[in-house]
């Protein structure tokens, strides 16, 4: 046999299986990340993915992604994912690790996230020696928001908030987070690496892998800081940015191991999983006491409740208040509730809407996508949500009649000039309460007493309270009458 036949090429380095096959963040470009050309985040993502592959921990890894350019890390890593509020990743990671001790928790954070708004979280997670791995991507600036100064910005470095360069007198000195954490007792491993050239990249990979491996071995807190190029905000070519890491950044942030106790460290005792909620009364020694005062009144639920409502209209029509009264009353009735005001781009055109859910059971999501009842206070809102109403559901519309095109036969409809009706009662602003009255009547969801109680808490002005109560009663009446009409017609 000839050499040609005997020898063949095989894969040496290829796409990590820890990445999703497609990144479905967008309809197109599903194979690319959202990072700029030459961005260090992409390189570091590949290191984390590769280490996960090599350690065989994909199925138990949970990645905590930060706020910053890498906020979308969860679109790329096919592992468990939690996206934390700005700077909170180590705290979230702590919770994840303690409640799921078998998981491998990777807190992935930028320098703005970790060293500015999240400086407390990282400090205390490190000080507790939490058994998590932190990947700290230091590009010396807030990139996602367009280049403001970060605690890690170099002296003299340009940023939008230090247009003349960072000055120690104004913004202080570049914060050496790794050295600071290195002064603590608990951390097992802290190293600073860089992406400035091939040698640095190889070292960075070894450090990332070690930080994860330490956690697999149960040793405790590991952190790798990686000096990482941001060509876009630094206004450099990708290659120049890489060189800048090596030639400039490294002078302020020297590379190397800051703490390494991996040889002598003993595996930490796994934290015990948290107790279940049902065990808590016993732990507190209160298992024989009744429920707290506010819930003491036994309530009888006529039937199971699972009500999903969408309320929409112009600002000033009382959209949010209607939802709030409903949710507050639901709470009084001992139900699970959610109330979610929706702030979308539509806010700018002066409309608002909210989602309300009332249920006997825990609510999975506060979003109401298929409402049982749509309360539409104007025509644009009606058109916007009309098709989403569940078959058999109700539409309460503030208008004399349903406009053209809104003619689904599988819905029940009450179209009345609610605001005008309220005006006759005393003030058009009570129109939302007329609509709430109709809603309560058509769903039979809550007793009038619970509503009155909630309303009494929320509306302090006696004159308004009285008007609102009349408005509610009027709304109930309107709905009852409409049902009678239907019976007569039928």
């Amino acid at each position: 046999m000839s050499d040609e036949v005997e020898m063949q090429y095989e894969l040496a380095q290829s796409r990590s299986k820890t990445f999703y096959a497609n990144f479905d963040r967008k309809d197109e470009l599903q194979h690319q990340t959202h990072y700029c050309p030459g961005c260090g985040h992409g390189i570091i993502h590949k290191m984390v993915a590769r280490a996960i592959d090599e350690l065989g921990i994909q199925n138990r890894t949970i990645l905590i992604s930060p706020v910053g350019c890498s906020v979308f890390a969860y679109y790329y890593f096919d592992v468990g994912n939690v996206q934390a509020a700005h700077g909170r990743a180590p705290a979230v990671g702590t919770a994840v690790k303690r409640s799921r001790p078998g998981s491998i928790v990777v807190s992935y954070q930028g320098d703005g996230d970790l060293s500015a708004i999240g400086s407390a979280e990282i400090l205390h997670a490190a000080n507790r020696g939490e058994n998590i791995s932190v990947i700290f991507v230091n590009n010396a600036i807030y990139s996602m928001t367009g280049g403001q100064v970060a605690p890690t910005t170099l002296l003299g470095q340009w940023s939008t908030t230090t247009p003349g360069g960072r000055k120690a007198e104004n913004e202080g000195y570049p914060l050496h987070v790794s050295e600071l954490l290195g002064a603590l007792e608990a951390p097992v491993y802290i190293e600073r690496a860089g992406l400035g050239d091939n040698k640095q990249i190889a070292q960075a990979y070894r450090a990332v892998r070690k930080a994860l491996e330490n956690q697999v071995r149960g040793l405790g807190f590991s952190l790798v800081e990686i000096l990482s190029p941001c060509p876009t905000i630094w206004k450099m070519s990708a290659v120049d940015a890489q060189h800048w890491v090596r030639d400039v950044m490294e002078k302020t942030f020297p590379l190397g191991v800051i703490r390494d106790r991996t040889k002598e460290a003993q595996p930490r005792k796994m934290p015990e999983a948290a107790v279940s909620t049902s065990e808590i009364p016993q732990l507190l020694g209160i298992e024989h006491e009744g429920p707290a005062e506010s819930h003491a009144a036994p309530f009888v639920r006529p039937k199971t409740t699972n009500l999903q409502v969408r309320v929409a209209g112009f600002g000033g029509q009382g959209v949010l208040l209607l939802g709030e009264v409903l949710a507050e009353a639901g709470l009084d009735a001992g139900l699970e509730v959610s109330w979610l005001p929706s702030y979308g781009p539509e806010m700018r055109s002066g409309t608002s809407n909210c989602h309300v859910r009332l249920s006997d059971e825990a609510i999975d999501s506060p979003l109401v996508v298929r409402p049982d009842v749509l309360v539409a206070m104007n025509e644009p809102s009606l058109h916007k949500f009309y098709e989403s109403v569940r078959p058999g559901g109700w539409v309460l519309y503030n208008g004399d009649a349903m406009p053209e095109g809104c003619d689904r036969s599988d819905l029940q409809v009450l179209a009345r000039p609610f605001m005008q009706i309220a005006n006759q009662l005393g003030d058009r602003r009570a129109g939302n309460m007329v609509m709430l009255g109709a809603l309560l009547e058509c769903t039979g969801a809550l007793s009038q007493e619970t509503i009155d109680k909630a309303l009494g808490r929320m509306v302090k002005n006696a004159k308004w309270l009285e008007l609102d109560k009349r408005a509610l009663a009027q709304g109930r009446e309107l709905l009852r009458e409409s049902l009678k009409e239907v019976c007569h017609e039928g």
Partner: protein
Amino acid sequence: MADTGKRDRGSLRIDTDECKGCGLCVEACPPKVIHLSDELNHYGYPTATYVGAGCTGCGICFLACPEPGAITVLRLAHAGSSAAKAEMSEGVGR
């Protein structure tokens, strides 16, 4: 690749749809066998191109590239011998 009878130790595949033309692989490659082509891909980036010979299979371009699958590095190995890929020596391919 022209068959000169002598095989390179490594070879390269570049997914031009995924490449963003940053040039980091060009910079990273020790024997300088990657260059940026003049042609732009679908998204308007010039793309990395393997010159077609001389790759050692070192893999550093893969590590330096920010995109998950833009680069795939292949290495020559004796069929059936997995040790060969780890211990690639100068003699291989002759």
